[in-house]
C-alpha cells in the first residue's frame, strides 16, 4: 500500500493530454540525456573500482580491514548533501585535491557533467561493493579449490570459476548502484550545481519544476518511475535472488 499510494498520486495528477508536448521539450530531453549518461557511467565506474575493492575486503585479511569496510560503506549512511559538501571541500576548485587536479589537467569537477558522475559514483559504489563482497564471502569455496587442485592458475580460477559463480550478485550490484545513481539529488546539486543541459539530471529537473510548473514535474517523475520499472522487470526472477 505504501508503495502504491505515491504511484497512484502521480498517475492521478498526470497531464495526459499535454504529456507528449512536455516530454519532447528540451528541459526533459536534456535531463534524460544527462541522467542516462551519468547514471550509467557511475555504475560502470563503480564496477571497475568496486569489484577489486570487494575482492580485497572479502578475501584479503589486512590490518584495518574493518575500518576500510566502514569507510567504504559511509556514503550509504551519510546524508547525500553532506556527501556533496564533503566532495566540494576535497575536489572543489579550492579543495585540496581539486586545486591540484585543476592545476595538472585543467579539469574542474564542480559545475561540469564529470562532477555529476563523481557525485553519483560516490553514493552508488557502496551498493556494488556490499553486494559483491557478500557474494564472495558466502560462495562455496570448494569449487575454487577443486579448480586449483586440477591445475588451474589463480587468474583462471577467477575468470572461469569465481566470477561466473557470483555473476548474479554482480548484476544485482550493478543494478542497485545504477538505480541509486539515477535517483541521486543532494550530492549532485551540492557538488555539481544545477544547469540545464550540463548538470541538471532528472531529479534536479523535478525539484526545479515543482515550484513553477507542476505538470512538468509530474511528467518527469512519471518518466523516472517508468524507467525504473522497466529495468527492474528486465532483471527477471533469476537475478532477483541475488538482490
Amino acid at each position, binding site marked *: 500500500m505504501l508503495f502504491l499510494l505515491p504511484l497512484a498520486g502521480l498517475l492521478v495528477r498526470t497531464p495526459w493530454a499535454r504529456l507528449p508536448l512536455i516530454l519532447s521539450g528540451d528541459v526533459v530531453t536534456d535531463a534524460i540525456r544527462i541522467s542516462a549518461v551519468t547514471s550509467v557511467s557511475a555504475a560502470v565506474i563503480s564496477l571497475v573500482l568496486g569489484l577489486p575493492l570487494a575482492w580485497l575486503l572479502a578475501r584479503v585479511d589486512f590490518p584495518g580491514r574493518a575500518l576500510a569496510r566502514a569507510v567504504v560503506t559511509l556514503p550509504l549512511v551519510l546524508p547525500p548533501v553532506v556527501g556533496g559538501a564533503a566532495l566540494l571541500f576535497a575536489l572543489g576548485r579550492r579543495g585540496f585535491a581539486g586545486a591540484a587536479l585543476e592545476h595538472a589537467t585543467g579539469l574542474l569537477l564542480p559545475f561540469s557533467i564529470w562532477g555529476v558522475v563523481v557525485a553519483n559514483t560516490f553514493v552508488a559504489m557502496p551498493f556494488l561493493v556490499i553486494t559483491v563482497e557478500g557474494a564472495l564471502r558466502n560462495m562455496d569455496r570448494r569449487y575454487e579449490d577443486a579448480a586449483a587442485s586440477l591445475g588451474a592458475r589463480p587468474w583462471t580460477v577467477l575468470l572461469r570459476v569465481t566470477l561466473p559463480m557470483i555473476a548474479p550478485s554482480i548484476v544485482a550490484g550493478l543494478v542497485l548502484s545504477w538505480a541509486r545513481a539515477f535517483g541521486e539529488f543532494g550530492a549532485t546539486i551540492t557538488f555539481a*550545481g544545477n544547469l540545464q543541459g550540463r548538470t541538471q539530471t532528472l531529479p534536479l529537473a523535478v*525539484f526545479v519544476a515543482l515550484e513553477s510548473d507542476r505538470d512538468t514535474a509530474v511528467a518527469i517523475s512519471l518518466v523516472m518511475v517508468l524507467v525504473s520499472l522497466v529495468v527492474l522487470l528486465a532483471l527477471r526472477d533469476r537475478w532477483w535472488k541475488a538482490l
Partner: protein
Amino acid sequence: MPGAESSDPGAYPGLEESVPWRWQAGITALALIVADCGGRTAADDRSAAGPGSQPDVGGQLLVSAAASLTDAFAAMDSAFEATHPKVDVALNLGGSSSLRAQILGGAPVDVFASANPSNMDRVARAGRVSGEPHVFARNRLQIAVPAGNPAHIHDLHDFSDPRLRIGLCAAEVPCGDFARKALDRAGVVPSLDTNEPDVRALLTKIELGELDAGMTYVTDVVSTRGSVQGIDIPADVNVVAEYPIAVLAGSPNPDAAHAFVAFVLSGPGQAILAKYGFESP
C-alpha cells in the same frame, strides 16, 4: 525510488493510525482546553497597546521565511521569545517559491515572510492570507564575489564571460528572478554555470571560491562578515526587493502570529532588520 530525496511539504505524522481512539479523544480534549486557555488570555490582552505587552500569548509558532532572512529572523526569533516567553517560534527557511508551494499544499504555517510580493500574491489569491500582507523590509541586489575578488570582477558585464564561473539563484526564486531582471536592464546575457535552489546555497559556493561571482542581496553579503565581498550595481539597473509578511488563514496559532507580525513591524523589529542590512519599507 532508492536514494531520491523527496521535498517534504511539512506534513505532520497523523495520530489516527497509531493511537487508540480513547487516547486520541483524551489528547484532543486536552489540546482544546490548553488552546482555549491561551485564547482567553490573549483576547483580554488585545486591548492593550503595542506588541511588547502580550506576555501571555503562547504556544508553537511556525514562521516560513525566505532564505535571505536567515540571520535577521534568527535574531528576531530570540528577541520575540524574550518579550513573549510562552511562545516557541520555529523558523522554516527556504526559497520563497518552495515556501509558497508548501503553504498552498496545506502546511500548517502561521506566518509567511516572502522575499517578493508575487509569491505572497499567489498565496493571497488562493485565499490563504488572513487580513492584508504588510511590506516590512526592502533589499537590494549586489554582485557577490569571494573575498579578495580573485577573478577581478568589475561589473555586470563580466557576467557574460564564459571563462568565468558565474552562478545565479534559480529563476523561480525571487533572488534569481530579480537578478535576471537587473541583467536584462543592463543588456547583459549571462554565461551561467549553475542555478542554485536558494540564495544561501549560492552564497556558500561563492564563499568557498567555487564560483567567481554571483548576484545576491546586500544583506547576504553583509552576513558573511568579510568572506564575501560586494560590488554595487548601478541604481538604474538594480532591482529593489520588497518583503511582505502576513498571518495565514487557518493558522493554528493566530494570536501569536499577529503578535509576531506586529513585532516585526515595530521599532525593535525594524532595528533588528536594519542591523542586518535591510532597508526600511
